[in-house]
Every structure is written in structure tokens, then in C-alpha cells.
């Protein structure tokens, strides 16, 4: 246990170092608390979750669903075992969310239906009063802002105020399209070759910007109410789509591997487990070979890598300690060494929980 600094500090009780010692002890205790927190898998998984949610606004909805589901499973088990009421609080939260979602959804549906009859597309231009309006919509690289002038229910001029997509479709697409719009005098979809993907998004954004601008000209153009706007912005953000789902799948895999490696990195002594080949050579050498469905030394090493030290302790009672596996391993791993490290880690965990003061006195 030499790697624990606080165990050394009480020994230096000389006058000069007492203050320094106390400070160091406090600091090291803080570090220990942090370390203990980080060495818990649940805490780390929460950190990954928060990190992902912070990095990708569009993934928040999916993550929220995943969080609620997993909490429901965990707390549901707790309810059946210990009668803990946590799951009801969760249910209340979910109910509030669902209620908000239903309200927002109703509002969105109402607005969308209302917009069908009063939208500025095509012939809807006749609803727009004369004047000059500004509108904004998200294009390919950022918000496109346009200024549209309308007279006698015809679009007379379109000015582009902000146009971050500039480099993608300079004058080859947007210019002729603007001309076409002006010629038609109303908002219509372009006839474009379907392959120009980047340009398609730009055009879409451009059209939406014009739509937003013209919408300001319609006297009673329906809008979302404040609650829906807040709800949409806070919980869902941009709608979850397939790209987000795919990215989350890869992130899930990566984080789990990261986690898996980290487990044996931060637990002293079990680091050798990460270079296991899974080749089962040690299983061949082992006189026990299999116990409770686990391939003996290899399964223990893999469980150590996983961080399931309690199970390792349960299973290590089958080990006869002959050390044959240590001689056979092609990369010089040693099953018993790793298992012993897992034993220590398990004891340390128990000590952290304050379960066994007797062992502390023994060491």
C-alpha cells in the first residue's frame, strides 16, 4: 500500500512538518475522494454521458431517453428489493416531460395546420401585405439573412444580407435561382439537379429565410407560443436524426472501450490484464479449467479487466495455486498475480465503503 500517500504522512510528526503535513493530508484526501469517485464505474459513465450531451446538442433527446430507461431499470430493481421510492420520483419527472411534450406537440400541430392555409408559398403571396421584411433561416454553414421587398403581391426584390454559404454555391446556383424567383414573383421550389447536395441545403435555407421574411408580412401568421419555444430549445434542440444515432453508436463503442482500458489502468496491479490475448493457453495448463461456467485463469483475468473484483474473489476459491498458467502464458502474464491485484482492489473498495475495519488493523 505504498502508493497511498496518506498512510505515510502521520509518521512525520516533527514540529516543522506538522503544518505542511496537515495541508498535504487535506490535499491528498481531496485527491483520494476524487480518485475514489473516478474509480466508480457509474460516476465515469455519468461523466461520459454529460460530456456527450454537452458536445452534441442534437443527441440530447436520445440520451435523455436512454438515461430515463436505464434509471427506470435500476430503480425498478431497487423497488422490488428494498422498497426504495426513487422510481416514483422518476415517474413524476417523466410525467412532467411527457406533459410538456404533449402540450408542445399540440401547439406545433396547431401552428403547422394553421400555416397550411396561410403560408406564403406559391399563391399564398397574395396574403402578404406590401413592404420590406427581413428573415433568417439556417443554411448549410450558418444563418442566412435576406431582405424581401413585396409590392402588389409580387416579390420585387431580394437582398442577401448575411450569406455564410458563400463559397459553396457562389454564383452558379443561387444567382440564377434568385433571378427565377424574381421572374415568377412568388416563392417556388427550384428545379435543380438532385446531386448538388451542399447546394441543396443552401437553397433550402435560402427558401426558408424568404419564407420567414414573407411570414412577417402576413398579418395573422401563426407562431409557436413561448412555452413550446422554450421546451423545444431546452430538451430537444434540433430533431434527432439518423446521423446523430449513428454517431452515438460509434461513441458508445468508443467510450466503452476507453472505459474498459481505464478500469485496469487506474486499479494498481491489474494493468497486465489488458494485454491478454484471450488465447486460452492458460486454460489448457490449468488443472481446474472451468468453474461456474468461467474458463479458469483466463476468465478471472478477463473479469479483473472488466472490474468485477467481487466475482473474482468468489471464483478464486477454485484456484489451487499451482502457477502452471504463469509459466505457459505467451506474453508473460500471470493469472495469479492479476488475481492477487484484484483481491487488493476488492479490499480497497470494501475499505472505501467502510465495511471491514478489521483488515485495516491487520495491515
Amino acid at each position, binding site marked *: 500500500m505504498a502508493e497511498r500517500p496518506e498512510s505515510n504522512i502521520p509518521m512525520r510528526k516533527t514540529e516543522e512538518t506538522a503544518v505542511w503535513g496537515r495541508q498535504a493530508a487535506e490535499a491528498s484526501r481531496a485527491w483520494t475522494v476524487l480518485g475514489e469517485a473516478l474509480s466508480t464505474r457509474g460516476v465515469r459513465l455519468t461523466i461520459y454521458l454529460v460530456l456527450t450531451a454537452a458536445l452534441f446538442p442534437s443527441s440530447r433527446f436520445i440520451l435523455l431517453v436512454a438515461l430515463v430507461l436505464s434509471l427506470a431499470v435500476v430503480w425498478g430493481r431497487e423497488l422490488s428489493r428494498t422498497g426504495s421510492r426513487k422510481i416514483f420520483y422518476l415517474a413524476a419527472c417523466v410525467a412532467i416531460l411527457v406533459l410538456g411534450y404533449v402540450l408542445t406537440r399540440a401547439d406545433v400541430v396547431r401552428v403547422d395546420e394553421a400555416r397550411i392555409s396561410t403560408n406564403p408559398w406559391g399563391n399564398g403571396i397574395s396574403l402578404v401585405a406590401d413592404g420590406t421584411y427581413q428573415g433568417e433561416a439556417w443554411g448549410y454553414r450558418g444563418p442566412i439573412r435576406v431582405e424581401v421587398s413585396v409590392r402588389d403581391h409580387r416579390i420585387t426584390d431580394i437582398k442577401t444580407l448575411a450569406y455564410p454559404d458563400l463559397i459553396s454555391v457562389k454564383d452558379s446556383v443561387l444567382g440564377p435561382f434568385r433571378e427565377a424567383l424574381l421572374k415568377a414573383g412568388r416563392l417556388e421550389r427550384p428545379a435543380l439537379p438532385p446531386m448538388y*447536395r451542399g447546394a441543396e441545403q443552401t437553397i433550402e435555407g435560402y427558401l426558408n429565410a424568404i419564407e420567414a421574411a414573407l411570414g412577417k408580412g402576413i398579418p395573422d401568421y401563426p407562431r409557436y407560443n413561448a412555452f413550446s419555444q422554450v421546451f423545444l430549445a431546452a430538451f430537444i434542440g434540433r430533431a434527432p436524426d439518423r446521423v446523430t444515432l449513428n454517431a452515438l453508436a460509434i*461513441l458508445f463503442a468508443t467510450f466503452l472501450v476507453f472505459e474498459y482500458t481505464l478500469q485496469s489502468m487506474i486499479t494498481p496491479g491489474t494493468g497486465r490484464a*489488458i494485454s491478454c490475448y484471450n488465447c486460452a493457453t492458460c486454460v489448457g495448463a490449468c488443472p481446474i479449467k472451468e468453474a461456474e461456467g468461467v474458463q479458469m485463469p483466463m476468465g478471472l483475468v478477463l473479469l479483473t479487466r472488466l472490474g468485477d473484483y467481487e466475482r473474482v474473489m468468489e471464483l478464486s476459491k477454485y484456484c489451487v495455486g499451482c502457477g502452471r498458467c504463469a509459466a505457459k502464458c505467451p506474453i*508473460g502474464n500471470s493469472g*495469479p498475480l492479476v488475481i*492477487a491485484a484484484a483481491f487488493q482492489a476488492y479490499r480497497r473498495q470494501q475499505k472505501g465503503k467502510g465495511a471491514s475495519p478489521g483488515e485495516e488493523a491487520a495491515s
Partner: protein
Amino acid sequence: MDSEKEREIKHQRKDTEQPLVLPGIHRYQFFTNLKDRGWTKNLDRAAVFGIVAALAATVIKPLTKGNPATIYCYECRACYATQDRCPVGITFQAELVVAGRVGDYDRFIRSGGLKCIRCGNCQSYCVQYLPLPVMFAAMQEDTRRAIKKGIVPRCSLESAMTYGLVGKEFIDDVVRALA
């Protein structure tokens, strides 16, 4: 000699401090050739951790930079089949995708990424139907920002100018950076 003796003592003491794996069996029974194998104690762990961290960095970087589709590239180079159908004569499209994934500006410029006009001709060849022009455009923006900041080495810009690898959208930026 003293240090050697000390090490020996340390070694022995460590050995007696070890907990028992099972009653009556000490850990020294299980020492392998591990000391021959590892040059230092933590080298292997550090190496594996470095690898996994590099992996995580490779995933997270494109996701946060707004180029998430690049991580699905098989790197099967089916897009090389574009050949003459590319209007600006880019021959190594997959290289551009990889460069976009890790933010490798030099490679991007060398493979002609600044020439690309995002016409989307290469997209129909992709086995995965990845939005190639979108990925290229995002990386182009990134490269332009990098050129403005002066991160991109001067020599790669110079050689790009010499071989005509800069499209007309970017030529101002490159000239300004070289001036």
C-alpha cells in the same frame, strides 16, 4: 554494490508484504518472466492507454468539428472510380475524407482538397452513400480558417500554388497567407 543490496532488500520486503492469494501460497510462486518482458513497470499500460486515447481522439474530433459522417468511411477507395468524372481532376477522394477526419491540412491540400467545387459527382460511387461534398466543404472551411491563423506550413502552401492545387475560391486566402 550498495544500491544493488538495497534493491535486493526492497525486493524481498515487497515479497513478504504481499497478501496471500490463497491460504498458504505466496505470490512469489507466480512470478513469470514478466520482468524480462516489460522494460519498465508501466510501459505496456501507458502504451495501451495511449492507443485508446488516440482512438477516442480520432472519433471525437470530427464529431465536434461538425464533420461526423467521416467516421463511417470504410476507406475502401471506391470513390477513386470517379476518375475523369471529377471536373477538377481530384484522383484521391478518400484521402480528403481521411484528412477531414483528423484535420490533416497538409494532406488535404496535397490531395487537391482546395480545388474541389463540391459538385457531388463522387458521391454516387460511395459504397456507404456518405455525403462526400458536405464533408469536403466542412474541411475546406476548416482549412481556410487554419490558413488565416497561419498554422499550415508555408512550404505546403507554396507547393500547392506551384502545382495548381488551389481553387479560385481560396486563392485570395492562400496568397494573403504567403505574402
